[in-house]
């Protein structure tokens, strides 16, 4: 299907995280000084076409390694209240929150998919927040990973250290863990590690589906959205049933 953007080939990429990471690192750091950023800027970047053939659409982090201004990627302290504040401030957008840690190998393998979704859909209303559960002493290592990945979105570092309190505060059982909020700020999809591996294609489909839904921003004069806002909160398991698969 012409408009299907599949990350299927990315599953092959996930098997080789280390060479991929090296490719990303080399795209910005290796080679004669002064040419690294030029090299990545010279590669043609297709950011807008909806009909990119599957081969090109396959996830290849090294093709769009890091934005020209690597210094724009930052990491700041942030807790669960900060996440809630960002979600509330992002009404109208779909928000994806990616919980990860430098010590979590599956997280590092999943992260390029998050970066790719943001690159592709940020202009269609996708907000991405990453939350590292590293200890504060690991901030430099976490930032280094984020820059290697080209994580050009909001990056938070948990203040709790690697502790039960961290998992309790963020209400997650394990990392990796991805939460996706709809345009009205409701937590609609939860992808949790600690069992079957998280499937990045499922995340992609969920995000695409939520992007396609134009939600009315809840307001006092809109009875329909007010009814939605006061409906019982769906728990993670049942909310997935509400989303129809994208039309084939």
């Amino acid at each position, binding site marked *: 299907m012409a408009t299907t953007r599949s990350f299927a080939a990315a599953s092959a990429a996930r098997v080789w995280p280390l060479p991929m990471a090296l490719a990303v690192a080399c795209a910005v750091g290796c080679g004669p000084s002064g040419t690294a950023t030029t090299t990545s800027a010279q590669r043609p970047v297709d950011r807008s076409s909806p009909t990119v053939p599957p081969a090109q659409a396959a996830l290849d982090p090294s093709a769009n390694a890091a934005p020209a201004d690597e210094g724009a990627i930052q990491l700041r302290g942030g807790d669960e209240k900060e996440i809630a504040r960002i979600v509330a401030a992002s009404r109208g957008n779909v928000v994806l929150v990616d919980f990860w840690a430098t*010590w979590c190998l599956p997280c590092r393998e999943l992260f390029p998919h998050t970066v790719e979704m943001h690159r592709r859909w940020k202009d269609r209303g996708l907000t991405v927040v990453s939350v590292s559960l590293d200890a504060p002493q690991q901030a430099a290592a976490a930032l280094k990973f984020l820059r290697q990945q080209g994580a050009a979105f909001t990056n938070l570092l948990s203040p709790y250290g*690697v502790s039960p*309190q961290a998992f*309790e505060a963020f209400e997650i*059982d*394990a990392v990796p863990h991805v939460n996706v909020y709809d345009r009205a700020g409701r937590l609609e999809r939860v992808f949790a590690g600690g*069992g079957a591996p998280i499937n990045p294609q499922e995340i992609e489909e969920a995000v695409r589906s939520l992007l396609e839904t134009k939600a009315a921003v809840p307001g006092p004069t809109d009875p329909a959205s007010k009814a939605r806002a006061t409906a019982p909160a769906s728990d993670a398991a049942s909310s997935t049933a509400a989303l129809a698969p994208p039309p084939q």
Partner: protein
Amino acid sequence: MSRWSTIGLAFFLSATAAVVIAAERSPNATKGELKIGDKAPTWSELPGTDGKTHSLDDYQSAKALVVVFTCNHCPVAQSYEDRIIALQKNYRDRGLQIVAINVNNLPPDRLDKMKIRAEEKGFTYPYLYDESQQSAKAYGAKVTPHFFLFDKDRQLVYRGALDNNMNAAEANEHYLQAAIDAVLTGGKKVEKTTTKAIGCAIKYDS
């Protein structure tokens, strides 16, 4: 049925459902985790790094039994190895037995690598490999390391993390040790029975 009867019935049913759902989930528990008071699920003939096979029943004489699901490669699991070794050493004479089980099927976690790690670190407790992953599934283990403490009757009295920080220097709440103390001091109740286990998610193959 009149409208009010219908409303009343709907309210009653949803209230009941809410109570049932709440009862199944305690605030810190991982979904599917063994519940406090549950009996230790049996596992048998698991190969250990000592070249022998091990079964839960081998440890019947232990007054307190810790089953910890852990692995080789996860940095969080690695950071807890010394603390586990110390606990086994300090409480062995009082009847504590720790058994470590790895269910990760990644190459760095398989039995040959486990043997190397056990020797390098000087594990003083069995380090077993469960290729079927059934033991971890039966206990509801989610991450490595995930600790389960059983009393002499093999009833679960504590589940979750060993203490409150991966960084040993910052850990100031020693949950597992407090629970072991309570178990080994006859008749004392464990005060904190559940904490959130921290570590790398266990990758179940199916």
